[in-house]
C-alpha cells in the first residue's frame, strides 16, 4: 500500500505549524487510524483526544481537509487521493496542544440551562411523545456544530450565544412530554437564539445526522415567536384567557 502524506498541526496556544508525516494506508482506514500510526511510530507526544473510536463518544473532533469532522469516521477513501490530507484542531476553541482544544466553554454553557423539572403525576408516556426528543438525545457532544457555527467561529459571540449543541439540548427539554420548566425568557434573552441565522452549517456537519436547524432551532424560534412576537395570539389569550 502506498504512503499518504498527512499535514498535521503541531503546536499550542502560542502558535504552531503543520508537519508532514508519511503514513502507510490500509483498506477501510480512517483518519484516526493514521494519527495512531503517527503516535505509535513517528511522534509519541502528538496530542489527540479520542476515546471510543466508534463515533459514539464524540471526542475526536477536528478539521480534516478544512471540514469539521470526527476523525474516527472519516474514511481515507472518502478524501481526494494524491494530495496531502490536512488535519487541524477545531478553530472555534483555544488550542491546548496539537489537535486538542479547550472545549470547557461548552460545559459552562450547559450549566446555565434551566434544568429538567418533571410534572409529578406519574403520567404515562407514549412513543409519539418521545419520537421528536429522542432525535435530540442522540447528540454525542462532539461540538462540531459549535465549531462550524459562524456565530462562534467567525464572530466569537461565546458570551451571548449558546450555540447549536445547546439549542438541541434546549429543544429536547422544551419538547419533553413531562417537563414543566418554562424556558421562553431564557431562550429569547439569554441563549442568543436570535443570533442564529439558520444557515445550517451545524446540520451539515452533525455526525449523528440530527436535523439541528429544522427540528430544533426553527421550532424554538417559532416558540419564541408564539410567546413574544405574535399579537394575534396575545389578543386571543386576552379574550379567551388561555396561555
Amino acid at each position, binding site marked *: 500500500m502506498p504512503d499518504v502524506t498527512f499535514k498535521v498541526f503541531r*503546536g499550542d496556544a502560542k502558535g504552531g505549524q503543520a508537519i508532514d508525516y508519511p503514513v502507510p494506508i490500509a483498506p477501510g482506514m480512517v483518519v484516526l487510524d493514521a494519527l495512531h500510526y503517527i503516535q505509535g511510530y513517528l511522534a509519541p507526544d502528538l496530542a489527540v483526544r479520542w476515546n471510543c473510536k466508534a463515533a459514539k463518544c464524540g471526542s475526536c473532533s477536528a478539521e480534516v*481537509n478544512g471540514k469539521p469532522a470526527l476523525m474516527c469516521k472519516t474514511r481515507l477513501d472518502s478524501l481526494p487521493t494524491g494530495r496531502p490530507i490536512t488535519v487541524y*484542531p477545531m*478553530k472555534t476553541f483555544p488550542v491546548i496542544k496539537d489537535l486538542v482544544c479547550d472545549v470547557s466553554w461548552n460545559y459552562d454553557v450547559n450549566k446555565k440551562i434551566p434544568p429538567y423539572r418533571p410534572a409529578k403525576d406519574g403520567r404515562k408516556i407514549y412513543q409519539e411523545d418521545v419520537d421528536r426528543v429522542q432525535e435530540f438525545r442522540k447528540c454525542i457532544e462532539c461540538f462540531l456544530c459549535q465549531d462550524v457555527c459562524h456565530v462562534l467561529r467567525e464572530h466569537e459571540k461565546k458570551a451571548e450565544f449558546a450555540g447549536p449543541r445547546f439549542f438541541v439540548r434546549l429543544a429536547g427539554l422544551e419538547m419533553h412530554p413531562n417537563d414543566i420548566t418554562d424556558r421562553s425568557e431564557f431562550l429569547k434573552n439569554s441563549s442568543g437564539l436570535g443570533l442564529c441565522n439558520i444557515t445550517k452549517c451545524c446540520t451539515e456537519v452533525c455526525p449523528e445526522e440530527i436535523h439541528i436547524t429544522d427540528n430544533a432551532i426553527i421550532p424554538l424560534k417559532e416558540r419564541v415567536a408564539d410567546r413574544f412576537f405574535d399579537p394575534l395570539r396575545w389578543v386571543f389569550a386576552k379574550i379567551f384567557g388561555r396561555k
Partner: protein
Amino acid sequence: MEKTVAPAAMVKFGTTQRKDAWWAAPTATVAVLTLFVIYSMVRAFENNYYIAGPYLSPFYSPLLLFDWWPLSPAFLILWAPAGFRFTCYYYRKAYYRAYAAHPFACAVGEPHRDYQGETKLFLFQNLHRFFLYAAVVVLFFLWHDVIKAFSFGGHFGMGFGTLVLLVNTVLLSGYTFSCHSFRHFVGGNVDCFSCAKAGRVRFKLWKGVSSINEHHMLWAWTSLFAVMAADLYVRLVACGAIHDLRIF
C-alpha cells in the same frame, strides 16, 4: 475566556482549508435569485400581458383593479408571496449565505465582522407566520385560477397552459404547506401529544407536514421556477409570441 488562537489564520473572506468547490452553491444561488427578482420586478411593472384566454398569470392573481391605485395591480398582491418567501426559513439561509456571506459557505472566512443575526432590525423575520396566512389566501385564488383554466368559453377543456398553471399551483401548495411555521402551527407547538386536545390527530398532521417539510428547499426552488415559468407562458401567449396548445 482566553482568546482563540487561529492556527490556520482564517480571518479574511474566503480563507479556508476546504479543498472542494465550496463557492459553487452560493454563487448559483446569487445568480438564480437575482435573475428571479429582476424578472418579477420587470413583470410586475409591465402591467400588461397577464391574461391569455382562461389563464391568469400568478403574478397578478387575484387580479385587483381599483381606480384609486395608480400602479400595476401586481403590487397589491405580490407583497404576500414575496414577504412569505423573504421571511421563509429556507430562503433566509440561502440569502444570508449567498448575499450577506454570513457565512458564504461552512468553515469559510467571512468578509466583515459586524453581525447581529436575526436580532434588532431582523426581528421582523418573526412575522413569517403572518405572511403564511396571507400566502394561504393567495393560494386559494391560485386554485380558483386553475379551475378557471379548465373552462374555455364556457366549455370544459384543457390547454398546455392549464397544465402549466396546475403544476405551478401544486408546487406552490407544496411549498406553502411544507412551511416551518405551518408545521409548528399544526402540532410543533405541542409538548405531549398524548395529553393534548385532539393530540393524535395533531400528531398525524405534524408527522405529515414534517415529511414534506424535510424537502422544503426542494419545494422552494421548484415552485420558484414554476411560478416564473407560468408567468412567462401566460405572457408569451398573451402577446402572441406563441400559441397555447389545446389538448382537448
